[in-house]
């Protein structure tokens, strides 16, 4: 029987466990709403490295080491390390993977990379190709801001719709054997949706249509109501983007108010002045691997639809006046 349901959804009908997770958070995140859920918090942005790029590489290497150690396995037990980040040529991901003698798959889809990794990873494990697959994504405020925006020390005023790139990384281990850990039950691969937003600081507005499309498609493909899930949680739409998603879903006939939330909107406290909230490839992986995973293990959430969202722009595409394509993948995670 085909694993495909509807237009874009694939049912994972064998067991694919999210066996374990590891996280490293930046100093600002360490003072945020999920401080007690992180495995490790950096005392400062550079973490003893000569550049923030090196810091991001070290974070990724350590998070993989930590996950291997927590799980009591060695790197040779891993079939593959899969991951991505925000930088050109996904340098932090590749450079951290060179520390391990493990096959490597680099992924890039901006802030939705974590969704892409979980979707592809779950299918690889479900297909019987791999049994131990490590997925991790990361971002660092210091490396992303300089690539996408302006120098860190430049005294410019942030736009009221802008978001703060999260410094952090989360890694998960996908396996076909487990116990009471959450399982990936289905995945919906999202389309690229672009409704013509050109303001690169307004990424929430650029990504909300893609998130809506993916969530609505998932619910239709699986013939479910939003209430089936304890929470539908997007990656980094920010507060305004989340409101837009709510509005757009309503237009499609889905009322998400009771179940909808967003990792980016949840990660910082109101006092931290992150404007619309967090963003970045590390945002959804950090929040899922810490808060949601640990709460799922406790049984406080039983069914989550994780929808990492990505804005696929570059500095050059913005300068050339191109609009911002958005993408989102939905991962149905259940106990």
């Amino acid at each position, binding site marked *: 029987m085909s694993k495909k349901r509807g237009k874009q959804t694939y049912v994972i009908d064998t067991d694919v466990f999210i066996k374990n997770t590891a996280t490293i958070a930046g100093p600002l995140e360490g003072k945020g709403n999920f401080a007690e859920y992180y495995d490790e918090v950096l005392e400062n942005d550079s973490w003893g490295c*000569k*550049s923030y*790029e090196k810091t991001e590489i070290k974070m990724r290497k350590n998070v993989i080491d930590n996950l291997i150690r927590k799980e009591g396995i060695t790197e040779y037990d891993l079939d593959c390390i899969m991951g991505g980040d925000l930088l050109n040529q996904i340098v932090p991901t590749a450079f951290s993977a060179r520390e391990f003698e493990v096959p490597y798959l680099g992924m890039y889809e901006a802030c939705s990379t974590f969704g892409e990794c979980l979707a592809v990873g779950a299918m690889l494990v479900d297909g019987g190709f791999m049994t131990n697959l490590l997925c991790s994504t990361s971002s660092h405020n210091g490396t992303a801001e*300089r690539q996408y925006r*302006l*120098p*860190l*020390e*430049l*005294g*410019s*005023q*942030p*736009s*009221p*719709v802008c978001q703060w790139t999260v410094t952090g990384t989360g890694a998960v281990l996908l396996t076909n054997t487990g116990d009471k850990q959450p399982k990936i039950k289905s995945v919906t691969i999202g389309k690229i*949706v672009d*409704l*013509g*937003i050109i303001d690169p600081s*307004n990424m929430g*507005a650029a990504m909300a*249509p893609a998130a*809506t*499309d993916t969530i609505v498609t998932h619910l239709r493909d699986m013939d479910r109501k939003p209430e089936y899930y304890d929470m539908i949680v997007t990656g980094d739409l920010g507060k*305004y983007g989340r*409101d*837009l998603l709510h*509005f*757009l879903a309503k*237009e*499609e006939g889905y009322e998400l108010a009771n179940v909808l939330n967003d990792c980016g909107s949840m990660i910082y406290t109101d006092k931290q*002045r992150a404007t*619309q909230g967090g963003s970045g490839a590390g945002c959804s992986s950090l929040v899922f691997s810490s808060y949601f995973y640990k709460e799922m293990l406790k049984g406080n959430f039983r069914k989550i639809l994780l929808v990492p969202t990505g804005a696929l722009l570059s500095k050059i595409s913005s300068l050339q006046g191109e609009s911002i394509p958005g993408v989102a993948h939905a991962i149905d995670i259940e106990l």
Partner: protein
Amino acid sequence: MMNKEEYKKHVSKTCPKTKEWRTMLLAFIVGGTICMIGEGFRDLYTEVIPKFNSTQVTSLVTITMIFFGSLFTGLGLYDKLGRYAGAGSVIPITGFANSVVSPAVEFNREGLFYGVMSNMFVVAGPIIVSGVVWSVLVGLIYFIVGVAV
């Protein structure tokens, strides 16, 4: 899904806006304070170095303000001020110093030549180019008017 035009209309209607009065007031206060400090240095230099004429004092004040703009950028304080002050800390000469020093600090790791030197003017470059172009145009107008009269 709604079409592009409808969506853009909805976004421009509902998008969070800058609190203009608050930002203008802060810009006025901070910008004004920076200029007052500059005036303070002018009075100080006029008093302490009486042999300097007013043009020389102006240059000295500018250099002093550039020094402090650069220093506070290096100490990581100017960007924090800029978050609140906006144009109030961008427009004075200290803001110009900030726009040169901040990329210089940032590209330090990529080396002196291809890092610091080639990136120092990524922010200030357009301002310098347009400043030069406009002064040439104004100079040309003066020249033509001067010849005609």
